[in-house]
């Protein structure tokens, strides 16, 4: 069976009311994640939520030919990498999977627990799995700073990896 055919998209939502501000764009083209401003003195949340839409074998893949089945992507997780200069303000990164529950709680992803594992596709009944039958999972991410966060050079820095296993 073919390997998982993962494709990755992002879009920008308002953290005020959840409205879409910028539509879906492939991470192939959109390599900058922009969360907007956060008040590090008073504490608070980022202007924007960055939403990831993670597909396995998305319908467009076959370009109109009959849909095929790819392997499931299992043990899916989002991992944060924080450089030393930004570690003193963590946790600052929060994520939630809204595939099933759009009101689910944001959880912190930090150096103490670097992986966000509450990921599930909307066609999957298996925890951590995005099925190879045009399944997808949606993850929302935002920045949240505590009051008096000491941000060097007025910035926080990190990178994000999406990890999965297959046979």
């Amino acid at each position, binding site marked *: 069976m073919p*390997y998982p055919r993962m494709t*990755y998209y992002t879009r920008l939502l308002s953290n005020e009311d959840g409205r879409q501000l910028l539509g879906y764009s492939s991470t192939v083209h959109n*390599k900058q994640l922009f969360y907007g401003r956060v008040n590090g003195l008073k504490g608070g949340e980022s202007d924007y939520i960055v939403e990831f839409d993670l597909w396995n074998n998305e319908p467009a893949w076959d370009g109109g030919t009959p849909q095929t089945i790819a392997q499931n992507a299992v043990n899916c997780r989002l991992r944060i990498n924080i450089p030393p200069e930004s570690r003193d303000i963590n946790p600052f990164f929060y994520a939630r999977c809204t595939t099933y529950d759009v009101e689910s709680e944001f959880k912190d992803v930090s150096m103490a627990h670097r992986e966000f594992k509450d990921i599930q596709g909307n066609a999957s009944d298996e925890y951590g799995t995005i099925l190879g039958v045009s399944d997808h999972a949606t993850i929302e991410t935002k920045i949240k700073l505590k009051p008096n966060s000491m941000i060097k050079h007025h910035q926080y820095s990190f990178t994000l*990896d999406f990890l999965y*296993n*297959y*046979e």
Partner: protein
Amino acid sequence: MNDLIWSIETINGTLLNEDMAVLQNIETERIKYFYFQSKKNCFGVNNKLEFFINNQIFDFKLKQKILKFFQYKEVSHSLMFDVEDICYNIGIEAEDDNYQYKYTMIIKSETNVDFLAQKFDNGKEIEKRKVKLR
């Protein structure tokens, strides 16, 4: 790292690989060598619970009963740089009278290979040890 594919040599000398067989359909007792193969190297485990890289044997004096051979690939996709890295994992699940064990060779690149030993009590991990093989 280039795509590695797994291969199996059975006890009667038949060679099978990822393109022609499904691992779950091969009985554990039939497997003599199970390994990933690149252009330069073979990384794997045999039915005596010895791990190997080419002719170099890593004998950890394992004595348990083999339950099954397993392999999986772990993909790490950078969402910001759109680059992908694949890590190849191959190993065995085993048991003795008291505990279950999982031994994994983790092949990150041709020159970066780890060995992970895990001990489980009723499915819960109770001990873990990682050794660098290369």
